[in-house]
């Protein structure tokens, strides 16, 4: 089993926590229990392609503007980031973009998998005039930035599982490449436990 840390970012009204709730509830698995904590959730999935089991530890962040400065504490050592916006709220994509810029600048991990997600497409299905951000617009931007991209609905569950499947696949690819790079010196099976936590160099509670 591979274990990855995924951080959730996005404005407070975009429904980022709901997406994860939907994901965890829909992926009920009688063999493995998931965790639903205050703002921490964990869920395992099995990759369709190769039956690789992947466990996500999902770290939620506070979306309110005033708590923006707390985010670095959450995204350090992350393997993946889910950056969420609301397709009916134009400002929320702007904020998502600024999160992605920050992630790229601050997280010194070139293999950080970032997925941009537009939520609340169910509202547009009922009334298309509510849509403020076109699929193509966001998709093109995500392509230019080399991100994964999905539109989802936490309410109906549309595309939610797919997001996590895709992130899992990507993470698996990176891991596989990393193992291959290590070459023969390390014969350990890819499914064995891999240490993902990096030593924490900074001293986060000192203010200056």
């Amino acid at each position, binding site marked *: *089993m591979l274990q990855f840390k995924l951080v*959730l970012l996005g404005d*407070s009204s975009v429904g*980022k*926590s*709901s997406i*994860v*709730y939907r994901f965890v509830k829909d992926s009920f698995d009688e*063999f*493995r*229990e*998931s*965790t*639903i*904590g*205050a*703002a*921490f959730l*964990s869920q395992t999935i099995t990759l369709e392609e190769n039956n690789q*089991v992947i466990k996500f*530890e999902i*770290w*939620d*962040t*506070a*979306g*309110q503007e*005033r*708590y923006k*400065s*707390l985010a670095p*504490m*959450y995204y350090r050592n992350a393997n993946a980031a889910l950056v969420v916006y609301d397709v009916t709220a134009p400002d929320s994509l702007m904020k998502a973009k600024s999160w992605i810029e920050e992630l790229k600048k601050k997280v010194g991990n070139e293999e950080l998998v970032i997925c941009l997600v537009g939520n609340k497409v169910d509202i547009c299905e009922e009334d298309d005039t509510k849509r403020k951000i076109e699929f193509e617009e966001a998709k093109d931007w995500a392509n230019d930035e080399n991100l994964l991209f999905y539109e989802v609905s936490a309410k109906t569950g549309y595309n939610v599982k797919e997001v996590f499947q895709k992130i899992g696949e990507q993470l698996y690819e990176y891991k596989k490449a990393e193992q291959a790079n290590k070459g023969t010196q390390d014969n350990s099976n890819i499914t064995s*436990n891999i*240490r993902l*936590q*990096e*030593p*924490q160099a900074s*001293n*986060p*509670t*000192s*203010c200056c």
Partner: protein
Amino acid sequence: MSFKDNILNEFDPLANNNNASRSSDSASNINEPHKESIDDENKKTNDGGHIKPVVNKNNVKNTNKDDINILSDIPAINAERETETVVSNNLKEKHQYGDNDRVNNADHLPVAQINETKEEIDSNDNYYDFQEFLEQFKKPTAEPLVKYTRSFLHNFLTQRSIWTTKEQTKLINDFKVFIFDKFLIYEPFKSMDKTSLNNAQEGIEKLIMGKLYNNCYSPNLKKLLKNKLIKLDDGHEQDLEDDLLIKRKFSEFGFIKPTYLDISFKDANKKSNIIIDRFINISGQELDKINKFKSPRDKIVCILNSCKVIFSILKHNKLEQNGADSFIPFLIYSLLKNKIMNLPSNLNYIERFRHEKFIKGEASYYFSSLQAAVNFIMNMDKSSLTIDNEEEFDKLYQDNQVKLKLMTEEIEKEKEHVEKVRSRHISQTSPSEYITKPLDEAANALAFKFNDLISTFSDPMHTHNTEVSEISVENANSEESDDLDYIVGMINDKENRHILKNLTSMFPDMLPEIIEDICLAKKYNLGECVDALLSLSD
């Protein structure tokens, strides 16, 4: 010279860089039953059989002949260790006939990871039994490990009067890497499965941090050095400055209302506010225990339990689906209301001395959240808050400032008064002072024993040692002052009643009998009880 020789003779902790890079978790995959009967083990110990004394004084003295200052430190270590052994056996006996068989209960898992206990692919990383580790550590085959540890502790404590925070972190981490490797060489650790080995690694961390606590935890280090007139290094000094800064912020912004932090709930009426205050209070009591425990793991469990209580506030108010958007403001609000001492020092201590392989999962999330919240408060000013009615805020702020000023003045007066009384006292030096002294010492010794017992041996979920010193002092005056079992039992009972009371007030709609049943089933572990009650109320 090999590292082994090095550590036993002229161990220079800073020189052992070459060990730092070794992998610490290349665990064996032997799947043999990991749990021996502790009761049997315990009998062996009590029969005075073949288990070697943990500390061999001669050995220590010989290997460190040339060190300055040995004698003042080493006997202290010995005494402490011996106390532990005696006390732990007492504690176990108590548990053998008590119905709360906590220490020996292999099924008992920390609340931190209860959600993951059914994980079948991973080994059970969450199994934790410090007693079991100590029994294993005392086995003759593990003697080299005991020697390494003792030598490390001795050198750490005597080679210098102060290490910087960076040096301490490196020394202790290097030692863990070193000893984790040695676990793979010596029985009984050598043939252990991953779960038991993990427990041993947890155990050694707790053991050494218990011994080095006063030298590593900044507030205690300051007290220690004050007597020796040595100045603190910058790292530890910074911890203390941060402690002071957040204390000031707690006073300055302690008056704020939930709305200032974007906390809103649908039916904000008086009744729900009272309930929320009660929860906030309980989460504070849980977090306050962080100052009562020495090991990084125990401190993290305090954080976790405190956060579980906050999570139950969210559930009660149907806010849990908002995730961190609701959780973080409540956490900050709880900190401002509860004003727990020395949080920055505690957090930095955990960060420095909790081995990285253990920093994961839900506990790690709450730890990071607390760090983030503490940072937020340290930088807090008016612009950090949502203020709808500026006039009202300014008035509350000013009123609070006036109140603080009055309080400071009162404290000053009190101090002066105490000084006066004391100086009068000294000049008169009544004989009675000397007569009462031995009694005080007995009380102190007992309190020390208990502090040691509890902080070194028990989990934060199990014991509530705020009352420890009270009780032990009370009893020091009675004939039963040496009856440790009796006191341990009293502490447990008192703590259990306390937990039951808290839970009843947190879940007013639930029948008290049901709550009590759950407490019994969950062995009065607050975090687990909260989880169970929440799922029932769903």
